[in-house]
């Protein structure tokens, strides 16, 4: 049915749709610009969303970077459709709001439209002294108890230095490719 047609179209263009979400101040926009080799020195908090099309290896990534302020989190749902990869960005230095972070992630993962998407959790701001490690973040978010059918991985990164970003996206792109482009 529809799914196979979507697969066919995507196969031809080798496109992937990636949705970036997370609390405000987690560094979503900075990550996207850093991956794309752009200047990250002046970035305003995202009012609404940005779309970035990036050629990554042999794939075209359409990255949807959606603002994380409380007021606009209710609009995240407008971007769920057709999402191949979900990137959940965590500010590893924001210890106070880890509960908020867990709650919003849990809500997101209940969403049926995101059920088939690969999940990359980026434990961002590892450059900041005192930030929690990816292992610690994984425990706080209780990732081990996640639904068995979900493909997921947590990677520590710094959007400031760029460290860890490629490791994370390499995994995400490979994981999506192995699901969608199995015929290759």
């Amino acid at each position: 049915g529809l799914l196979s047609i979507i697969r066919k179209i995507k196969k031809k263009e080798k496109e992937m749709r990636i949705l970036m979400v997370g609390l405000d101040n987690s560094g979503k926009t900075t990550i996207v610009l850093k991956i794309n080799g752009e200047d990250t020195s002046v970035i305003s908090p995202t009012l609404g969303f940005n779309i970035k099309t990036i050629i990554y290896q042999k794939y075209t990534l359409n990255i949807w970077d959606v603002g994380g302020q409380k007021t606009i989190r209710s609009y995240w749902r407008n971007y769920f459709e057709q999402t191949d990869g979900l990137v959940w960005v965590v500010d590893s230095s924001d210890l106070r709001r880890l509960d908020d972070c867990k709650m919003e992630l849990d809500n997101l993962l209940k969403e049926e439209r995101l059920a088939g998407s690969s999940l990359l959790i980026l434990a961002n701001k590892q450059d900041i002294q005192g930030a929690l490690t990816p292992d610690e973040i994984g425990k706080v978010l209780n990732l081990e108890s996640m639904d068995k059918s979900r493909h997921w991985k947590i990677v520590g990164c710094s959007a400031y230095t760029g460290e860890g970003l490629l490791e994370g996206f390499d995994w995400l792109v490979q994981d999506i490719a192995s699901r969608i482009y199995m015929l290759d």
Partner: protein
Amino acid sequence: MEDDGQSSVAETLDPALQKKHHDMLERLSARHQARKSDSPDSSSSSSSTLESTSSFLAKFSDSKRSIESRIAESRLASSSTDSSKLKSDLAEISVAIDNLEKLLAENSYFLPSYEVRSSLKIVSDLKQSLDILSGELVPKKKFSFKSKSTTKKPESKLPEIQKPDVVLPPKLVPVRDSPGLRNKHGETLVKSFEGSSIGEFTLSDLDSCQVKLTGTVNALFLHRLKKCSVYTGPVIGSILIDDVEDCVLVLASHQIRIHCARKSDFYLRVRSRPIIEDSNGVRFAPYCLDYKGIDEDLKTAGLEEETNNWANVDDFRWLRAVQSPNWSLLPEEERVSLLTISGDS
């Protein structure tokens, strides 16, 4: 040469594989036919994805024209219609624009990026003209979805918070506290970051305190401050402020986010646009701090130049073209002059 190359490739192909390939092409074309014949049904019932650029563009421009004409009608009818009718008209147009945006979002995966960009531009233009219109026609009324979202949130959250509590205690993993100053009343608190390896710093639960922070850190969190004065050296990354009242805050950073602030004055230098959310009675003025070595610290944080962004505040609770009633510029005659502090107490 080329012919030779091709034929040799064809020869080396496994005949079974060729057969498979052929079958697949047939299946795909059959599916394509099937889709063509029943597409009107499926597009209306199951999903609004259209799967062709031209049919998307046709539908998109239809909706766009209809929204534009409704905006024009509302403008013409504004003098003769009563305000509640006008308000509901505007709300309907706003929903129509949201639907248009949703249509775009749902179809973006196959659209050429140029079409996505130009369509996004159209959506944002429509939003802007609606903002301007509603600013002209109903200057004082808030949009209904604002109050709705505030009332909805707690309701939808409650059961979901309780659920994980049953399964596991919320603080299963002990989270250490970050360095900071907490739970003080009526004190003067001084801290120098010079030569320290502190990356993030927190001020929380302070009442009637004066806080002086010199040197640079990567991240600063301010939480639950009342009747405090806070003077800080430049922060390299970002400052996150949540729940402050009756405060004077003198801050510099790459990004500054202000949540739930009431009756407070902010003296800022910031590389990007500062934002407020759920705040009111907040006023803004330029950064005015001085201490020994601040010039170097400003340079370290890339904040040596005044950007004038202190006045470019985005209010996430007021997404309209007219000025937000929640914040204002602090009149010059009410501003404090240059504040000189020292790193020692």
